[in-house]
């Protein structure tokens, strides 16, 4: 089966985001950008399914500015087979991304789309669920295990109380959680090979998708700062402060 893996270019997870002084957003100038960590897990899962003989082709898709090509190259270096870049300079909300992915799914006919559960920039946690709705497919979100068998797929999900397992008809949407796998690093030879793998370029207009945002960002500000605290010298002092100063025990 064919698998589609959407990969988003986001601020690197080690970088602390800084708010722009004019409150219009977060400053991404000269900031290290990487593949969304959950999407690395999604690519890895697709590769493992390919190595297990279940998957035949992996298509990595990214939607955004030209540099998203690098994110796709990353996925190709890990082991995806080809890429599709849907180029736009407009910011895209999850609903718009899901609509673009829906058209690509109709063109590519994959049997599974594996997405990250959450992009670590917008922290939305929506796109996979929205794509599933638009396609009328089932969804296995926050997956810590994915087992395709007999035209169905069992997905174990990380939920608030522990773990839940659901069985989904195929084709299906899966979104990844942290414990699904540990993504591999691309080896140097594979990075070289990835340079020759094809990346198709399209635009939302070509795909006939209206990506006009539904939300207007009025302002973006820094969160309230915590007052600097104190160091205590001993457990006795800590307990005393917690009881008599903070009054929390």
């Amino acid at each position, binding site marked *: 089966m064919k698998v589609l893996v959407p990969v988003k270019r986001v601020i690197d997870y080690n970088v602390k985001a800084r708010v722009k002084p004019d409150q219009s957003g977060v400053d991404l100038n000269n900031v290290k950008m990487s593949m969304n960590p959950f999407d690395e897990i999604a690519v890895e899962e697709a590769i493992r399914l390919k190595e297990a003989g279940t998957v035949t082709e992996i298509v990595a898709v990214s939607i955004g500015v030209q540099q998203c090509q690098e994110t796709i190259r990353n996925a190709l270096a890990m082991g995806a087979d080809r890429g599709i870049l849907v180029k736009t300079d407009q910011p895209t909300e999850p609903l718009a991304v899901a609509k673009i992915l829906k058209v690509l799914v109709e063109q590519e006919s994959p049997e599974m789309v594996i997405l990250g559960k959450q992009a670590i920039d917008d922290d939305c946690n929506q796109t996979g669920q929205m794509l599933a709705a638009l396609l009328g497919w089932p*969804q296995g979100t926050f997956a810590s295990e994915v087992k395709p068998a007999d035209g169905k797929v069992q997905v174990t999900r990380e939920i608030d109380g522990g*773990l839940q397992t659901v069985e989904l008809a195929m084709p299906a949407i899966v979104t990844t959680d942290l414990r699904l796998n540990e993504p591999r690093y691309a080896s140097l030879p594979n990075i070289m090979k990835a340079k020759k793998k094809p990346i198709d370029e399209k635009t939302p207009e070509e795909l006939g998708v209206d990506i006009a945002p539904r939300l207007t960002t009025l302002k973006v500000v820094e969160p309230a700062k915590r007052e600097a605290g104190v*160091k205590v010298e001993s457990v006795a002092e*800590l307990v005393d402060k917690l009881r008599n100063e903070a009054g929390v025990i």
Partner: protein
Amino acid sequence: MAVLVIAEHDNAELNSATLAVVTAAGQVGGDVDVLVAGQGCGAVAEQAAKVAGVAKVRVADAAHYANRLAEPMAALIASLAPNYDAVLAVANTNGKNFMPRAAALLDVSQISDIVAVEAADTFVRPIYAGNAMATVQSTDKVKIITVRTTTFAKAEAEGGSAATEPVDAVDDPGLSSFVGEELSKSERPELTAARVVISGGRGMQNGENFEMLNKVADLLGAAVGASRAAVDAGYVPNDYQVGQTGKVVAPELYIAVGISGAIQHLAGMKDSKVIVAINKDEEAPIFQVADYGLVADLFKAVPELEEALAKLPKN
């Protein structure tokens, strides 16, 4: 105007996080209705009817809502939503699962994880692991919202007397089925609702050592949490994870033990009222958010803490 709150429950009991969503819904404005979708969930409907500020409780009782799977839940919510200005649910793993699906069925955006209501169409939500707060205005006809319940006061569980009415179930899309569940059992309070949380990180070294935290937790009536590193290493189950991509907690007291304080961890606990950090590295970033920092070996400090707490006269 009217708004719909999706009740969080286990078919027997209304989860108290729902009460915070009722408060958020009240701030959006208009009549607040509550949808209880489940199987054999009559008791939940009765509890919801007593919540102060609720106008009407709507009950969808059918086998395919038993486990609140996303496909049937979203279909049901999408069928009811056109009569409302906004639909709100808890931003937990249930709400995060079915609400975006419902939003897409309605061709509207979702506003995830709101921490404040500025106006009926304007909300504040954290982005970038809480390092920025965005105020967003929605132009959609119906607002689909998940609520970070730690930032809203809970509505009174008693005092209301809402009418209860059944709603027709929507056909099960039949795409998914429930296979099973492995739930962590604990006598301790639930992580997101606890007054005190004590969390362990990679510094704990293994799962057995979490027993030290359990003992302190029992003395304080606390819940036990963990960093991602502790969960990934298998010390504790996934539902212990506090952080950007785990649970968000805001207890009166949060004690971080052997946790360095990565951005992703801070995102889940920095709104706690009082933060204590125990770490042997005085440079650990956790100390930048801690009200009380103790630079010490946890294997010495935690047993001492347990002893000191055990001796403390009851308040």
